[in-house]
């Protein structure tokens, strides 16, 4: 049985339904992420897991016990807060010792565990410092150590990296993954940063308007988004409006409005005449001055470079097709002796394989 099961949970604030019939299960030892834009209900769901909010209906089953009405201080669940919420009047060691003291642990045990955790987060030399004497990354590590010290069954992390600058955030992501493997505690992580979610998680629940849009492994979510929202929210994606013209066993034919026909992989339940969109990642599209048309699995379109965004390692080209539609593509700047491939207004050809995109039914 899963460590944590959320069963049909609903939470309303007045007229606003923050969490709308959400059910999901988190396995022991998993790094699970709730991802979504602000106001999607992810934080409310997290607060219900911590115990700060009670669900209006549904069950939250932790380790076989319904904890929906158990107060936060009685749950074997700890939270790393967005602003860390370190106690300013306590040293690093006192902060980390706090949960153990509340649990009534013996002094020896407290000292031993605090020393262990200080080592885990590499803050041995900072035990006697106060929070205001630490950098953002160090405070973050204290907050994590404090939440882990008495081995909760579940660690909740509420956008813990959002206050850090980009470089430090990346470093902390690596530390988080390592730490989670080391301690083996189940992490439920809340973020609105899709890159962070993809990098950290075993599984991601993408939330929108109080509901889970898709629950899958990061690569599934990225490659096979189930809805327009997921495709659009996770990474960059071309969403080409199309309708189904023919459904075969291995191929499905689409008519992309105003551009032409193309093949794609069939999706369950698709019928000729149905509308939807083809989700096509920029990096799956081939781009060249002219591309050999020898592969029948590919579809080709002509266009003109409308804009380019030079990012250093790659350049993003926005290509305008003959009918005026804009398609985003990406090329690594890997050509020796050249900074990039094309300039604005260059005539180019686009191509993608039938299995490059993923059709989403409207």
């Amino acid at each position, binding site marked *: 049985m899963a460590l944590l099961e959320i069963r049909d949970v609903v939470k309303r604030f007045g007229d606003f339904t923050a969490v709308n019939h959400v059910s999901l299960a988190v396995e022991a030892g998993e790094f699970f992420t709730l991802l979504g834009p602000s106001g999607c209900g992810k934080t409310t769901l997290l607060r219900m897991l*911590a*115990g*700060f909010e009670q669900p209006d209906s549904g069950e939250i089953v932790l380790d076989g016990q319904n904890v929906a009405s158990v*107060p*936060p*201080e*009685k749950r074997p*669940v*700890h*939270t790393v*807060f967005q*602003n860390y*919420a*370190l*106690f*300013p*009047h306590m*040293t690093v060691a*006192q902060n980390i010792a*706090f*949960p153990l003291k*509340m*649990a009534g642990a013996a002094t020896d045990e407290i000292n031993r565990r605090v020393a262990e955790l200080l080592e885990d987060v590499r803050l041995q030399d900072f035990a006697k410092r106060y929070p205001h004497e630490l950098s953002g990354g160090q405070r973050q590590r204290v907050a994590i150590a*404090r*939440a882990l010290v*008495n081995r909760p069954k579940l660690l909740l992390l509420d956008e813990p990296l959002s206050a850090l600058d980009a470089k430090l955030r990346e470093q902390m992501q690596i530390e988080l993954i390592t730490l989670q493997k080391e301690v083996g505690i189940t992490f439920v992580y809340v973020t609105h940063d899709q890159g962070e979610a993809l990098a950290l998680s075993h599984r991601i629940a993408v939330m929108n308007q109080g509901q889970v849009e898709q629950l899958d492994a990061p690569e599934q979510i990225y490659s096979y988004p189930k809805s327009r929202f997921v495709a659009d929210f996770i990474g960059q994606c071309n969403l080409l409006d199309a309708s189904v013209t023919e459904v075969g066993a291995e191929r499905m034919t689409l008519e992309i409005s105003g551009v032409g026909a193309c093949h794609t992989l069939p999706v369950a339940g698709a019928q000729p005449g149905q509308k939807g969109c083809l989700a096509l990642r920029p990096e799956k599209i081939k781009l060249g001055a002219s591309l050999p048309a020898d592969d029948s699995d590919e579809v080709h379109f002509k266009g003109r470079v409308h804009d380019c965004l030079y990012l250093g390692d790659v350049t993003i080209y926005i290509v305008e097709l003959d009918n005026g539609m804009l398609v985003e593509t990406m090329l690594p700047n890997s050509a020796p002796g050249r900074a990039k491939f094309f300039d604005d207004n260059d005539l180019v050809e686009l191509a993608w394989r039938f299995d490059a995109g993923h059709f989403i039914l409207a």
Partner: protein
Amino acid sequence: MSKPVYGLGGRYAKWLISAPPLLYLLLFFAIPALIMVFAAFRFPGDYGGLVPLVDVNPDTGARELLLTAENWRDFLTFENFGRFFEDSIYLELFLKSFWYAGLTTLICLVLAYPLSWLIARSGKKTRDLLVLLVILPFWSNFLIRVYAWMIILGPQSYFSRVLNGFLGIFGIEPVSLLFSQFAVIIGLVYVHLPFMVLPLYANLEKHDMSLLDAAQDLGANAWQRFWKVTWPLSLPGVWAGVALVFIPALGMFAIPDLLGGTNSMMIGNLIKQQFLDSRDWPFGSVLSIMLTLSVLLLAAVAAWAGSRHKKKD
């Protein structure tokens, strides 16, 4: 980066700005305090005041200093201090005043803490209204408010009659509320309560509520959340309130005068008596100095205890 340019020229500006209050304090606090210290070593004059050090020479009409290296014993003395320590009555009065002020401070703290917490946690509009209500009594004169208490506690008041009627049911003799230690404490608490509420409110209002969430999340119950988080973080406000209540309460003379009986005199009353009734300025000065010294001593002990407590952790 270039230095910002101030209209008055940076260096002199700070002196120019601080000169008026400095001058004021020098003239009306520092110099009078020094005069008082000096007065404590002089003899009282025959009709009050002090034995003069300067006299007009009847022959020349010039003012001359009477004090010389030979006759200083006729003008300066330690006797006034001796008198303070000779009779235990003064020390007892000091202790009693400390007890009154301490009790007042404690009652104010116990009453003000939950009130301040409540104000700090209310919505913006309610908060402003409640703070206004706390300072509202300042809009009327202090003495008038104390007179009001004389009426409230007086034997003819509804309050006294209902209370005594109630006590009568159990066969208890009627009590007189006014002119008692009870009335003095009531008055002291009433007058000083806002001085405890305001610094506490200012402190509690700034508390980061997510700390309480964190403490609860980490296993602290309501009692632990208060004693481990809210209380230690509110200590600066508590100390400010304690100082603002204890020190003025210690020197208070109007309230014991008006509400107290014969046995509820405080140091303030004694000092007032020395200066205005007995017209013994030197001894009044001695009492004032001892009062100041004892407050300083208390503050020093508190600071020492505080630093020791911090080291222990």
